């Protein structure tokens, strides 16, 4: 479904990505842990097609249409209401006019945003904005989810809800790449783990039932006090 082969990228002389290779299938969730500056966001942008890598190829079944991106910025327009935002993004992704409204309502319901639905996006709290951002990312039913530090700034409750939702989405067959610098956050969700440092994977493999503590230890060892 999603594969990267020998992807390398540089900013000037600074090596940002170094021969990244992996494949991701339906239902798999890859959690990439790494310190700041390791190249995690760059890799995600390359996977999304926002950056053309210097070397290597990325193959994504369905192209840009199949991607849902959730970052720490909501990508919503402040003055427009939640519903208006969702309808706009749906139209850009060519979601058929007839189904746009129903999908928007469905997602608003699923994410508990009924009361905020007709409020301008700028009036939302951080947690509400994050949920609206998730709705925006899902409005076109993407098969691949790319998540860039999605738990940033979320309180415990919101983070737990996000974890639950991501689990459901993976169970329904989506491939997910989750990038974070915090090992505790992504562990339960992941089917596969990668540790990243200075642009390359220093470790890559299935989670194999390890829990957050074990992974944190392995991470520290592999990345060295990250």
């Amino acid at each position, binding site marked *: 479904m999603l594969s990267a082969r020998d992807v390398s990228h540089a900013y000037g002389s600074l090596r940002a990505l170094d021969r990244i290779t992996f494949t991701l299938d339906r239902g798999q969730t890859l959690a990439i842990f790494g310190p700041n500056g390791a190249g995690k966001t760059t890799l995600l942008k390359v996977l999304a097609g926002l950056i053309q890598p210097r070397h290597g190829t990325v193959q994504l079944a369905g192209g*840009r249409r199949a991607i849902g*991106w959730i970052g720490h910025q909501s990508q919503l*327009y402040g003055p*427009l209401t939640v519903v*208006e935002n969702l309808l706009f993004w749906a139209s850009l992704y060519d979601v058929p006019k007839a189904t746009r409204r129903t999908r928007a309502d469905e997602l608003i319901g699923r994410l508990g945003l009924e009361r905020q639905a007709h409020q*301008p996006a700028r009036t939302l709290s951080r947690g509400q904005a994050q949920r609206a951002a998730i709705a925006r990312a899902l409005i076109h039913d993407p098969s691949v989810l790319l998540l860039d530090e999605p738990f940033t700034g979320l309180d415990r409750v919101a983070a737990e809800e996000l974890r639950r939702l991501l689990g459901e989405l993976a169970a329904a067959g989506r491939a997910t790449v989750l990038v974070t610098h915090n090992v505790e956050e992504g562990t339960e969700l992941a089917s596969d783990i990668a540790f990243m440092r200075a642009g390359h994977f220093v470790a890559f493999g299935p989670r194999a039932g390890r829990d957050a503590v074990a992974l944190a230890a392995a991470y520290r060892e592999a990345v060295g006090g990250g």
Partner: protein
Amino acid sequence: MVVDLLRHAWLVARKDLYLEFRSRTAITSALVFTALVLVVFEHGRDPTAVATIDLAPSILWVTFSFAGMLTLNRAFNAELENQALDGLLLAPISRTSLFWGKLVANLAFVAVVQIAGLLLFTLFFNVPVWRVWAPLVAVMILATVGFIAVGTLFSAMVVRTRFAELMLPVLLLPFLLPPLIAAVEVTAKLLGGRPLSEVAGWFRLLAAFDVTFVTLATLLFPATVTE
């Protein structure tokens, strides 16, 4: 393919129009500014010293230029707020659609301000505009399109730099001049009752300028948003 291109561009433009309609800040400030400039010119002139009709073209076009700059400033601000620009770049629409959408929205705003400006102008200054309204509107359109195309392109870049509001006028000034000179010349000749044949050359220059720079800006826009 082309249909999709235009359709997506229209979606982007429509979104910008909704946004502006919701907040109304840019258009309001541009309209107020236009009125202010015209009032200042009205009070500052001495009708016995220089006939209005000699000053009129310059006044009109200075006003339009400033108003144009003001509306350009808003072009990409909304996209930066919550990184919506990244969302637009991720979406399955071409960069060209994005650019044309922005361009159409900008032109719509500028058009509103220019029409209001023209009406105020005829109100304040007793100048025979109505006889020549058609070629006057034509020159207003032609003198604006190319400039706003370059302005939209530059505002995409400038929005991510420091001193964005200062940078845009500095970069745009040289591009303002050829259409501005042409516009003032044509307006002067039109208001002075000169035959249309005398301004044909200027119209051709404006048309060439517009075609060139709309094309160039469209081609260069992707370079401003890729990484």
